[in-house]
């Protein structure tokens, strides 16, 4: 019986007439190719090409207006003996490590607070995002004013509270300058952590916390044994993104200090800009920015492996 139905259905299955375009698109391989094409073009044009171009530049002695010749790893050899480069490396690592710890701690704290029920919850959540939404250049200029030795609102407040007697030179003092830059980075980065971690927290069923409360876990234990392990995959992704961003941070430092005073706040990106664009040594500048790559690669690989391990638990 079943066979008869199939036979009877056959005329309806017969293919209608199709043009050449339709026939090509009916082929899954070609269809997939056309779907991928726009993405591939965009990635190639804006990511792969600049990256390859950067690698090529790094092994030449190109200057602005001079194509340059192949010099092998000479640019990197110069960097190894460049004391400013070494300062930049150390500063970048310190800058990334310290700000990441603070951003994570403050972001998590905010996320835990925002995850509670209170009046005007939505409004508060929106406000939290402000530092993240305002263009970095604008907010950093505001900070520059707040750090200004003469007009600093921070100094004014501290002075009138009787905490300080002399003005603090926030961006002029080499040690304070790095700390000041870090403060702005933390201020700007916390919302991203807070909102991402809040999203992660909201995927954790409140019943788990209730079950743990009945099981006898105190608030800290509930966080330690339930919330934190369940939030860990999200946390790792957020930290990964943030580390990459912070490691390559440019705008903040460029506006606040330009890498100074005396290279005290010099980072990979600002130094690469100074050498490559400021001084016109394109080859050496490319080499500096490329020097970040292996470090970031290690960070990314380690974290991705870790995320995979956590997720398969």
């Amino acid at each position, binding site marked *: 019986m079943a066979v008869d139905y199939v036979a009877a259905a056959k005329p309806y299955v017969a293919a209608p007439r199709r043009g050449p375009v339709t026939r090509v698109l009916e082929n899954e391989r070609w269809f997939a190719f056309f779907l991928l094409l726009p993405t591939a073009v965009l990635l190639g044009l804006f990511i792969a090409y600049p990256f390859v171009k950067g690698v090529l530049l790094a092994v030449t002695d190109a200057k602005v207006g001079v194509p340059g010749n192949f010099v092998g790893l000479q640019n990197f050899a110069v960097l190894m003996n460049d004391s400013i480069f070494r300062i930049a490396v150390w500063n970048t690592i310190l800058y990334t490590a310290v700000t990441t710890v603070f951003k994570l701690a403050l972001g998590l704290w905010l996320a835990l607070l925002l995850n509670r029920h209170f009046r005007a919850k939505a409004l508060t959540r929106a406000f939290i995002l402000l530092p993240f939404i305002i263009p970095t250049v604008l907010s950093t200029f505001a900070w520059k004013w707040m750090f200004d030795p003469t007009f600093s609102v921070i100094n004014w407040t501290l002075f009138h509270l009787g905490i300080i007697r002399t003005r603090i030179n926030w961006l002029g003092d080499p040690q304070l300058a790095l700390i000041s830059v870090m403060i702005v980075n933390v201020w700007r980065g916390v919302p991203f952590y807070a909102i991402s971690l809040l999203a992660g927290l909201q995927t954790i*069923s409140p*019943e*788990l916390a*209730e*079950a*743990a*409360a*009945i*099981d*006898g*876990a*105190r608030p800290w*234990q509930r966080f330690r*044994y*339930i919330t934190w*392990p*369940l939030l860990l995959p999200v946390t790792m992704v957020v930290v990964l993104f943030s580390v990459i961003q912070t490691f390559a941070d440019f705008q903040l430092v460029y506006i606040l200090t330009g890498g100074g005073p005396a290279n005290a706040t010099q980072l990979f990106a600002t130094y690469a800009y100074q050498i490559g664009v400021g001084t016109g040594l394109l080859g050496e500048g490319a080499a500096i920015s490329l020097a970040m790559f292996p470090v970031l690669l290690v960070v990314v690989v380690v974290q991705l492996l870790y995320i995979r391990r956590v997720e398969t*638990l």
Partner: protein
Amino acid sequence: MSRVIIRSLNKRFDGVHAVKDVNLDIHDKEFVVLVGPSGCGKTTTLRMVAGLESITSGEIMIGDRIVNELPPMDRDIAMVFQNYALYPHMSVYDNMAFGLKMRGFDRTEISNRVKAAAEILGIEEQLQRKPRQLSGGQRQRVALGRAIVRHPQVFLFDEPLSNLDAKLRIQMRVEIKKIHVRLGTTAIYVTHDQVEAMTLGDRVVVMKDGLVQQVGEPLELYNEPANRFVAGFIGSPAMNFATVEMADTEGALWARHEGIRIKLPAAIAGRLRPHVGENVTLGIRPEDLRVASGSEEADLSFDAVVEVIEKLGSQILLDVRVGPNTMVAAVEPTVKAKVHDRLRLALNPDRLYFFDRVSQAAI
């Protein structure tokens, strides 16, 4: 003594009076089921006993202590949640051991208790697995295990079976009953399923709109419902209702309506006599209707037109039209009936229910 006493318990959320003046004495070792439609306040009541919801007014006693201000962990209760609420990153063993670890039990004691509970529940093989590697039924067992290992004074169940398929639900129902018989721990169980309530509860509390409608043993609720709501809620298929007028003619009391004319037996006529001339609600359970065999039942039967036939095997449900009302009759599987057939249905005169039209209370 692990009794639970609830006195004048109230809960108000923003403008909503969710639980209204609930009073309940739950005895030691008793299994009490709170049942009602969603939004009736049963879960809120349970959560207030657990300490997960604050109490607006009233008093809750567990054992001999008033627990109003105690956090959940100090109330010596264990709760089984609807969605199991297992810790997804912990093994089955760790899930069950967590409460004991938090309370500082030593390793051997924890291990002994977890293994004992696993044996009762038949999940010894799964102890090293993660919750997501388990089936729904196994997860529910782990959730039960987590409650059992604690040896609490009271078990609280919040619709623990509603995420399981029908067959598993019946199986787990039996197991919960067995565990209760074996451990004898006082239990409060919330469900919206009246069959679950009837089969599990030593006593059943029927709630609606935050109010307790009736408290009683399962058969008491079935046989003597306090009001129309309980009558309609308990029993499956649900009780049939029709509005009838009470009339006193030919020296007997009659319940009359389009299509229905029933002569009330003397036994119940007395209670209904004050309502002569009024409309009241008549209730007949489907199982108290049968296909009439002869004309001698003329005063206790009525004509009905079959609209739908549901053959369940052990019985047949006839959805019939009686005048303007539809009714369900649960009849013997041997009855031969077809859709649109006109039948005469006889009723059991000892099992008629009457409810006041206004107060809905049983007459």
